[in-house]
């Protein structure tokens, strides 16, 4: 019994007129992003010019200054931003990997071998994700201080694994629930053991779903601010924290530099959002709304 999918239902055709209207509105909607990206390519004078300049000579100066600062002696000093980008990638990568592996196993369990109180477990898991981060962070901060995990990689990675776990479980469960169990039963009749069923039958069907879950969790973690603000030290700082610190500079904000950091920070997000478009709905609702 296969569930009939009405995925790509034909929408009514509207033609190029709609393209024009939607394109115009879309551009207005997108303009704050465009403005920041433009600011990143401006010189200091152009960035602060009144009236604002729409046309200007682009420069890559800000992007260089993201990573190197030139001292009065002409020496090039690293700003540490390279490290912060590495930290963002490493911490998000490790945290998400852990969360998705553990979460996928749990999702398979919840979907195929329901426990007594299955829904209660799922509810508690979702609640951990719905809680305001500030509620969770107070005790975690204390716990990390006692255990010495504060400021190191391990603590923040474990925390992000927890942070993404609820998301991974709910997302992957929503994908497992859509798979027909008949194929699995047939494989079992043919003598496949449970491991083979999971790895050879289920997972291959869910490649796209798994990829969507991973990428979504990566973005959520990549963007996360509060946990990183309180639990990373100067060696493990992530980019959002560095951005917030650049905002709080004493000598006024260096908008060109900040815009350049943001632009670099956003590139992966743009790329990935485009690829994810078909899974966005499920992703942003943590798998609770499929279509």
């Amino acid at each position, binding site marked *: 019994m296969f569930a009939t999918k009405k995925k790509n239902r034909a929408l009514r055709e509207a033609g190029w007129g709609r*393209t024009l209207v939607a394109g115009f509105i879309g551009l207005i909607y997108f303009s704050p992003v465009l403005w920041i990206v433009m600011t990143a390519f401006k010189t200091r004078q152009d960035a602060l010019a009144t009236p604002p300049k729409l046309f200007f000579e682009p420069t890559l100066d800000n992007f260089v200054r993201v990573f190197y600062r030139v001292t009065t002696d002409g020496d090039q000093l690293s700003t540490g931003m390279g490290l912060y980008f590495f930290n963002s990638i490493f911490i998000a990568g490790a945290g998400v990997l852990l969360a998705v592996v553990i979460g996928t196993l749990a999702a398979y*369990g919840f979907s195929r071998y329901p426990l007594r109180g299955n829904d209660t477990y799922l509810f508690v898991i979702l609640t951990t994700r719905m809680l305001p981060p*500030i509620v969770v962070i107070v005790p975690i901060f204390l716990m990390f201080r006692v255990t010495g995990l504060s400021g190191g990689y391990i603590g923040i990675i474990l925390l992000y694994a927890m942070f993404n*776990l609820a998301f991974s479980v709910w997302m992957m469960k929503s994908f497992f629930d859509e798979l027909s169990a008949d194929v699995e039963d047939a494989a079992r009749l043919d003598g496949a053991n449970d491991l083979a069923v999971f790895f050879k039958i289920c997972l291959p069907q869910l490649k796209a779903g798994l990829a969507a879950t991973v990428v979504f969790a990566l973005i959520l973690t990549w963007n996360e601010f509060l946990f990183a603000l309180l639990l990373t030290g100067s060696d493990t700082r992530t980019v959002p924290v560095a951005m917030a610190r650049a905002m709080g500079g004493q000598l006024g904000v260096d908008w060109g530099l900040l815009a350049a950091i*943001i632009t670099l920070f956003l590139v992966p*997000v743009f790329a990935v959002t485009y690829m994810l478009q078909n899974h966005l*709905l499920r992703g942003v609702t943590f798998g*609770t709304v499929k279509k």
Partner: protein
Amino acid sequence: MTNFLQWLMDPKRRGALLVTPAIVLLFVMNIFPLMWSFGLSFFHYKASSMKPPRFAGLYYYEKVLSDPVVWERFQTTAVIVTASVLMQMVIGFGLALLFAKKFPLRREIMMLVLTPMMLSFVAVGVFFKLFYEPTFGLLSQAMMYFTGEPFGLLATQAGAIFGIVFADAWMWSPFVMLLVLAGLVSVPDYLYEAAEVDRATPWQRFKTVTFPYVKGLLLLALLFRTIETFKLFDVVYIITNGGPGTSTETIAVYVYRVAFQFFKTSQSSALSYILLFVVIVLTNLYLYFVNRREREA
């Protein structure tokens, strides 16, 4: 050892085996710390001092609930949540209607609208801070064109709240759009055709054909966004940092201050538990409607 493995791999325990690592991780990193802070909320304790905790009973709950400042922060949060969620619903619905037809380059144009919700709160905060900046920000310059004077939106409470609401609504209207769009796509074509045959006016068609299919998802969007906006922290922290004064301090920013600037650990724990309760109620409600929708489908 082999006995233990056999016991572990018994098909009866398959579900428990698969789920255990997740439960352990959640317990260690979430539930246990929460229980710890639940305990602390009944003791006098400051994270910044070495004094051992002293039992306080319900003192901090009484203190928090009778504190006018806390109620003020709840009010600020309620104003921001109401205004922002309302704006998200209206804009999101409009956008969904715009994208509910097929047209050339639809996917590409939709990207422009969908991107904001994938951005980091910090980045969005920076965008709008730059936008509202009184000397060279775009908003101030546009106002200068009309009034001849620089305009600091964030200088007044009403302006600052509007500034935050606008940024948050910009970021999350696409979320509502996605949900509504899912509803619009599910309206069967024959209903529209029937409405045409009956010569229904566009409003009648909307009310009797479109809306019933969107209703459920709209409710989910409303609840989900309410829960999420209730936690609003990063955007406020970056754009106004609670100012001017404390007039835009949301409850999340307030808890942050109490916990990490004043180090009133017990008080922040008690406050956290009140927030936790609110979120659990809302999440329950949300899941109730999710399940009802799935049963109906």
